[in-house]
């Protein structure tokens, strides 16, 4: 009888950390050929337009960055929380909280100049998302409420709060749609490159990668957060105030998601609508996992996702393969990556009996 067991493997050399994600993406593209062929697409043509559509022209390339910025922020938000084992499934709601506060301030800011309005909105958006995440953080540490459930459910709470406001006090005067008035010019992110939507929020998102990397690797807070994540009992034994670490981690995590909401509002939509986010908060979970919770990994996986999402539009137009294929590829990428990560730590051993 032959039995196969999963056993731990010796630690892999450092280059494996680079090679394995690339191999995972290649494997994903090979596997994704199956649904593309099933959808009746010409494989080479489909892949060509997928990448051409995302990277081939100046405008498309910049659009890929535009799309990557909210994904990057929600991905970082989730990765930062997961690292401390705070299971933040609520980036979506925290994003909405950020967008909501930005709307309130952006509509009512009147005549203040941009250098005052924008920083105010950014800080307020960060805090709104942060507080919305800190609530389940406090519930988890003080009352042992499961964070997966509370962060997830608060998404719906925030969505309905937003709905109530958009049908009520925030509704654009004279409109019967659930949408707010447009925000004033001073509240809009500057467009940095002409003839594109490449806005300041993209720089904020890239800067956030550096900030999170710095916090994780260079600060006492990053150290504490990691310690709480690997073994909360030992962290507590070592004198770390685990409650404070979890709540602050939640706050920063939610704040990042809140910034994603601010960006979508102040650079893309300019007014609050019910579908301000097509699920960026949830996609952020996948991106964080795909990036192995590392800020640089998150950067690459957010760009990869963005390429797929933006490129799928062109691919669909040129080959008739539906854009849903983008979501299939995203799901496939996560599964392949998780399997590859598993085999970074374990290997199969065939045992003959």
């Amino acid at each position, binding site marked *: 009888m032959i039995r196969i067991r999963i056993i731990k493997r010796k*630690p892999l050399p450092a280059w494996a950390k680079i090679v394995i994600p690339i191999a995972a993406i290649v494997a994903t593209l090979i596997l994704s050929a199956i649904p593309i062929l099933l959808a009746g697409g010409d494989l080479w043509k489909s892949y060509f337009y997928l990448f051409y559509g995302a990277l081939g022209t100046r405008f498309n390339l910049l659009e890929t960055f535009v799309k990557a910025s909210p994904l990057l922020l929600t991905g970082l938000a989730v990765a930062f929380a997961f690292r401390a084992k705070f299971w933040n499934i609520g980036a979506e709601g925290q994003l909405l909280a950020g967008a909501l506060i930005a709307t309130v301030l952006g509509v009512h800011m009147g005549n203040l100049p941009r250098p005052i309005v924008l920083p105010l909105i950014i800080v307020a958006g960060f805090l709104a998302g942060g507080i919305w995440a800190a609530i389940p953080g406090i519930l988890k540490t003080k009352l042992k409420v499961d964070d997966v459930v509370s962060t997830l459910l608060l998404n719906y709470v925030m969505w309905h709060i937003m709905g109530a406001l958009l049908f009520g006090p925030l509704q654009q005067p004279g409109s019967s749609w659930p949408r707010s008035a447009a925000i004033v010019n001073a509240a809009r992110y500057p467009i940095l490159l002409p003839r594109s939507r490449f806005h300041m929020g993209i720089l904020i998102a890239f800067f956030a990668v550096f900030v999170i990397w710095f916090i994780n690797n*260079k*600060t*006492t*807070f990053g*150290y*504490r957060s*990691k*310690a709480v994540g*690997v*073994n909360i*009992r*030992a*962290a*507590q*034994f*070592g*004198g*770390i*105030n685990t409650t404070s670490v979890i709540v602050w981690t939640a706050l920063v995590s939610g704040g990042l998601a809140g910034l994603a909401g601010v960006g979508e509002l102040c650079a893309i939509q300019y007014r609050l609508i019910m579908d301000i986010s097509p699920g960026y908060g949830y996609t952020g979970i996948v991106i964080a996992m795909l990036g192995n919770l590392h800020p640089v990994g998150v950067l690459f996986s957010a760009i990869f996702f963005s390429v797929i999402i933006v490129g799928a539009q062109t691919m669909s137009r040129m080959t008739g393969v539906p854009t849903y294929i983008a979501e299939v590829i995203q799901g496939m990428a996560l599964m392949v990556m998780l399997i590859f990560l598993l085999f970074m730590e374990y290997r199969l051993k065939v045992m003959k009996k």
Partner: protein
Amino acid sequence: MIEARQPMVRMSSITKYFLDVTANDKVDFSLYPGEICSLLGENGAGKTTLMNVLFGYYACDEGEIFIKGERADLSSPKDAIARGVGMIHQHFALVPIQTVLENIIIGTDSGKTIFLDLKTARRKLLELEQRFGLEIDPDAHVWTLSVGEQQKVEILKALYRNVDILIMDEPTAVLAPAETDDLFSTLKTLVSEGRSVVFISHKLHEVMDISDRIVVLRGGRVVAERHTAETSTRELANLMVGRDLLEDTTKNQLEPGRPVLEIKQLDVLNDMKLPAIKNLNLVVRQNEILGMAGISGNGQRELSEVLFGMRNPARGAIKINNTPLKFGNPSSAIKLNMARIPEDRMDTGLLMDLSVEENIILEDHASAEFQAYGVMKSKIIHQYADKLIGDYSIATAGRDAITKRLSGGNLQKVMLARELAGNPAVVIAAQPTRGLDVGAMEYIHQRLLQERERGVGILLISEDLDEIFSLSDRIAVIYEGKIMGEVVAKTASREQIGLWMAGVKK
């Protein structure tokens, strides 16, 4: 073999490794019909591992198992149950929101059909309940039952599956005394009908009460086998803990100074809310080692957790260097300069998934020496870690090596390096050498003696009598949460300590 009858179970030359630890080393074990056989030994002696092998939970690396005369290759508990072997672990495998009956039929034929055949199952269950005097309402939800009742459900579950070889892993650890009596009478009924029971325990008086035969394990090996009638708690205590003297520790005569650790009227409850420490008073002074002997499970864990700031006592006061310790707050203990060596170094003491350096700086990472405005001074931290790795001769690939790759002895050295680096005033060392090899053990003993010379007061909690005798200035024995007695080590006899450990007071 003592018996001539055909054994129910014969395990021959069982060896089981976990990575590089040998949990069972060529163990022979037999179980006969109609007997209660106790497996006695310290924590980590290999009792539970051996029985998990018999239950098909672990595959042994070497050795053979025969059940009722037939060779058995067990690849899962299912195989074992099919051969009549059942095991009740310390943590019950019950579904709290289901009823007793539903729990009992899980995985049996009447639980596998699309429509549950509850009627037949209920009849069979009630019959069993009556026959063995285990009265439990089949429709009660498990979460409403007491721990003792849940244990009865586990026993019924085994009987329902026609188990005639029942293994019970420390069944009394969670029970109140009256429930223990109940359990014992149930077990006696079971064996009177020809079934056999294996009773895993480290509690001497229970083992003497319940078993017909006792097998003593130490360090993964069988060290003795006795008929209960022909042995005593004293002999068993010695067999369990008595190791050959490994080292000749010489220590200087020192005059103890002022008290550094004072424990007054301490009451502590365990996780089951039962009293674990009862009105305990202790004083440890400078330049002395107070050895706390006792068989594990007598309150040592709870006491050390209170001292470490990991558990709130029900009553009492603790002073370090004349300053009260804040309870339930590990940083209070750290601030009062207490070095803490917990018995479960891998779960509580160390962050196994982080690097050696990250473990070394755990308690000091926020000090001004290692950070400024929340940014860590990596260079200074590296130097500090490298220095301690050198000072304590920690064998590691480097300060960045992941801690879990270190051997047991080196893990404990990391622990010591972190805890002793701040020149502590008092050291609490709980089972500091358990599971370590001789070299590491000697190193740790020397280190503790150096601290004593330096003027530190040390509370050494240990099950290892040799360790207690070779290091301590005074010896106190803990039994069921109380101090049975205290003596100056030089005048103490092993017999006296052994009696106290067994709960005998003269």
